């Protein structure tokens, strides 16, 4: 291993020991890319210089951790997933008197509001509670506020329609200057909370867990750990949805899930 790789591993180790954030089982190439971007933006020349700065100054660490753990998404990302969710899963969830959902790694919240809209349109939202969690506090804050740039709404509206939505999408938000704010009625049944999939435990039992484009950032070991966490957090016959390039291949619980929609990566816990 070259010196740069050693310095990189030491950086992740000391972050884990000092601050309790564990990135050691993240897919390395993406983490490295983000570390390099952070260094370039802050004109830091070498990894050991960065390590010194973030171990000495908690403020620098806060900034670093926000950049390292940020993820981006959009409303109804991959519309066919949401269409399938509406057509295959919501019908079956309707039989429950009370529905609990966990959106794990919710980033800035766009997909959480998408799910709330689906449940509202199917008349289920008033007996649904959505737990939306993320490791990144700044992202969670954005999610909680439910305010997004107006310029993104064209894409979001197109996605909504492709996902089978047939209401005027603009009824779900109010626009002011260059920002839109999603309706309070959607937020009422959402709880936003910090949760770190790498180290935190399960906190409830759910009929549906959605975790999309988060596992791609983990190595196989951590993927397996997190899918186990989801398995334990699902009720019998609970549903699990992932990103369209993700799979249960590296999970030792694979045989306890059956396909609901293989292409859209929607599964049901069978045992």
């Amino acid at each position: 291993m070259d010196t740069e790789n050693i310095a990189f591993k030491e950086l992740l180790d000391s972050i884990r020991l000092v601050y309790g954030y564990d990135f050691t089982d993240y897919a390395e190439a993406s983490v490295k890319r983000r570390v390099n971007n952070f260094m370039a933006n802050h004109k830091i020349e070498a990894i050991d210089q960065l390590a010194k700065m973030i171990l000495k100054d908690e403020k620098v660490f806060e900034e670093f951790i926000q950049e390292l753990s940020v993820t981006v998404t959009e409303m109804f990302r991959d519309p066919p997933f949401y269409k399938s969710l509406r057509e295959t899963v919501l019908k079956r969830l309707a039989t429950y008197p009370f529905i609990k959902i966990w959106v794990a790694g919710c980033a800035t919240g766009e997909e959480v509001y998408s799910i709330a809209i689906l449940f509202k349109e199917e008349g289920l939202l008033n007996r649904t509670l959505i737990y939306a969690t993320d490791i990144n506090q700044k992202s969670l804050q954005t999610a909680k506020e439910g305010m997004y740039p107006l310029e993104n709404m064209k894409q979001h509206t197109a996605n909504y329609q492709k996902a089978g939505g047939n209401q005027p999408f603009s009824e779900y938000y109010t626009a002011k200057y260059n920002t839109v704010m999603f309706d309070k009625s959607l937020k009422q049944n959402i709880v936003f909370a910090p949760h770190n999939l790498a180290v935190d435990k399960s906190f409830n039992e759910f009929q549906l867990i959605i975790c999309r484009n988060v596992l791609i950032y983990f190595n196989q070991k951590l993927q397996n750990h997190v899918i186990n966490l989801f398995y334990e957090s699902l009720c019998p016959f609970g549903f699990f949805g992932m990103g369209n390039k993700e799979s249960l291949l590296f999970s030792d619980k694979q045989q306890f899930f059956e396909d609901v929609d293989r292409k859209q990566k929607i599964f049901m816990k069978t045992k």
Partner: protein
Amino acid sequence: MAAHGKYEAIVIGASAGGLSALTTILGALPASFSLPVIIVQHRYRDQMNLLEEILQNKCKIQIRQVEEKEKVEAGIVYIAPPDYHLLIESDNTFSLSSDPQVSFSRPSIDVLFESAAATYRKSLIGIVLTGANKDGAAGLLAIKKAGGLTIAQSPEEAEYPYMPQAAIDKGAATLVLTLKEIQTRILNC
């Protein structure tokens, strides 16, 4: 890695006009080609497998859209999936990311090239083909700095010269070749 020569992998970046350029290069490769070929072609996010199907129709070598975490193997052409960045890990596996666009692109050529340069160092060949975007220039430079062989398609020949020209202007290209010459060069690896 099974490679017996000097190189372990080839990475190719293409944008506008890429389909026909890729067909020319890949169409010449035998099914038993001795290296993995890893490609970012800028593409619409809705066209899930169209690019792979079109290329496979015209090539003997196996064409495949990358699956997350799969191992990089010789004799396969891997294509980055739409709407994800493609990276190569130091243990010779693929990973994907949903990070923001780089040079207005996801997948981005720079992201693939920079991670491949870190993994394969001097055992890598990087090629920038036709396109109307500057994606790939920084990545090709990273490959060059790591000691790899870097090639830009001749802008006179390229359907869209802007992208290979941007790589050349950055001083990233060791060789400037036509598609025919690129074909010959990689067949002799």
